[in-house]
């Protein structure tokens, strides 16, 4: 809960439309995650899922500053980022259910959701693995002389893996258009990340590599939005890579089945009081957005996701032939000495 929520009044030239749309996005993420958690309990979601409940302001505030063809790389906790980037939630839910029509045809599941049509280059099951991949995507954009930019979101635990150093150094050395976003939710699985992190953290490490970096309140979407807008503008201006350290909080366990017994309940309560959706709702009220519109954001999101849930549930399994497709063109994937 760093920094104060930016001052907003009825009078300030605050973009009501824009932020009301962000509220819609945040509720859609919240509703999607809650349904995914429920579906896991029902046995419809098949593998582990890592909910982003409480972190919606980062996904919504960053992605609303990206063009559809800008590229996003995410993590195992990537549902919110993927939705905010414009992926079809039905295809996403189908992927979580392992059904036909999933974003990856049911081959990837929650930890490997990707939707290249909207520039979402993938979640990743390996912590920090997307950092070099993001640097490479930006490297390709530069080689091709394209104007697009890359955003790479990773967790606070990822900054202790080597690829964080190698990828940031690379992006700076080649002056690449990539924004690194450390989505700091306080935890690495069951570990309080600070206990395993030397020094002040992501921003200081980025600055030591010559990347301009900023630490912001990741539950204040107004702050996230303006920081992201400024950073992405700098990328377009060819100023090279930057890092945003967004301080937020993981309101669930590490996975949907983790009770998080290791966490101080008081801490959770404190953060519940800083719920990013409540905070944006309050900002909108102050800005004069009508109460019904604020309520509608939530209602619409849940009804949309309930429909999606039903549609996904009623979708069949993928065609098993797919198991042997898209491995590699050369060689027979069925290759089995005997069977």
């Amino acid at each position, binding site marked *: 809960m760093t920094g104060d929520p930016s001052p907003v009044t009825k009078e300030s030239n605050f973009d009501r439309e824009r932020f009301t749309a962000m509220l819609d996005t945040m509720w859609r993420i919240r509703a999607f995650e809650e349904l995914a958690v429920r579906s896991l309990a029902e046995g419809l979601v098949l*593998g582990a899922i890592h909910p982003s409940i409480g972190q919606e302001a980062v996904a919504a505030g960053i992605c609303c500053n990206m063009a559809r063809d800008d590229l996003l790389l995410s993590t195992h906790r990537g549902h919110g980022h993927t939705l905010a980037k414009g992926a079809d939630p039905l295809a996403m839910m189908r992927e979580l259910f392992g059904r036909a029509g999933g974003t990856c045809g049911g*081959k990837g599941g929650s930890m490997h959701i990707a939707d290249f049509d909207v520039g979402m280059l993938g979640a990743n099951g390996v912590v920090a693995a997307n950092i070099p991949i993001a640097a490479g995507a930006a490297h390709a954009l530069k080689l091709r002389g394209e104007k697009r930019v890359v955003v790479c979101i990773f967790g606070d635990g990822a900054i202790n893996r080597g690829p964080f150093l190698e990828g940031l150094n690379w992006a700076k050395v080649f002056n690449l258009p990539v924004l690194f976003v450390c989505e700091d939710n306080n935890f690495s*699985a*069951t570990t309080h990340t600070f206990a395993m992190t030397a020094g002040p953290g992501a921003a200081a490490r980025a600055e030591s590599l010559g990347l301009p970096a900023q630490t912001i309140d990741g539950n204040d979407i107004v702050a996230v939005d303006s920081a992201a807008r400024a950073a992405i503008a700098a990328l377009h201006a060819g100023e090279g890579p930057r890092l945003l350290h967004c301080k937020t909080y993981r309101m669930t366990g590490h996975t949907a089945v983790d009770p998080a017994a290791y966490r101080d309940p008081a801490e959770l309560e404190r953060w519940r009081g800083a719920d990013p959706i409540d905070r944006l709702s309050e900002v909108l009220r102050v800005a004069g957005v009508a109460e019904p519109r604020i309520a509608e954001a939530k209602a619409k999101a849940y009804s949309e996701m309930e429909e999606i849930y039903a549609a996904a549930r009623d979708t069949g399994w993928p065609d098993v032939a797919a*198991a042997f497709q898209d491995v590699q063109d050369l060689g027979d994937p069925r290759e089995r000495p005997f*069977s």
Partner: protein
Amino acid sequence: MSDMTYLEAGRRAVIEEMRRDERVWALGEDLGRGGVFGQYKGLAEMFGAQRVTDTPISEACIMGAAVGAAMTGTRPIVEMRFSDFALCAIDELVNQAAKARYMFGGQMRVPMVVREPMGMWRSSAAQHSQSLEAWYTHIPGLVVVAPATPEDNLGLLKSAIRNDDPVVYLEHKDLWGLTGPVPEGEHLTPLGEAQIVREGDAVTVVTWSAMRHRCMKAAEALEAEGVAIEVIDLRTLWPWDRDTVFASVEKTGRLLVVHEAVAVSGFGAEIAASVAEGLHHRLKAPVRRLGAPRIPIAYAPPLEDKARVTQDAIIDAVRGLLASAQAA
């Protein structure tokens, strides 16, 4: 004998060896809360956070630090969480841990155990399901172990911790909950010794890890047909127990190797090739291997299942061996 889970047996092995030898310690992510599967539950409380230590998400450094700590008078147990993540620490394991003793002319040893939970687990997809034991058997300097039962997870892990060279210790994620009898007192399973789990004269089936249990089910089904297969659980993959396998094949004249890993260049190839080289003239049928097709592991169950070696496939393979024997 008392019943215990595979997970609990591994936990007991660590507790007993840490009590026995204060040089033994464990390091890995989340160990302070028992580790991702609970294999270390309560150990930090029992031995202190120094000997059961949390680490940053730094697989390369977890492995590399263990190498340095093993060279400096301690005996680290490295927890890699999923064997897939050990791929972030391969230089440290293969170029450093496995070679140090030799490269430095035997000036020191690197006594460390690298625990790598492996294998398929419902809908864990391509980056959380791999079985790469064959890789490690190819690397001089590494001992490779893959326990299949609670009793062996106790006895083999204890032996691995006492071994003075690096051991890659591959527990199977799908076996954590398996319950079985475990001896009460001190129990050590010698490294390098296979176990004949079931005697038979029709076909020698060599397997390890989770596949042991599928082979046993196939054996029961085949028994109904009057076919008695001999099931050998290798337990230690390097060094593997050639004598036991060869003796069995001399008796049955037929070999089937069954593993969960991709068949192509899997460890089954080494066993099948060794038997074909050494016992060619004793074979009543060609050697056979069963493993996964050469595909990444998918998330959706119907696709994921295509990467599984099924009980039916094992039964068919055995029937095929008996049929081709007539053909010969």
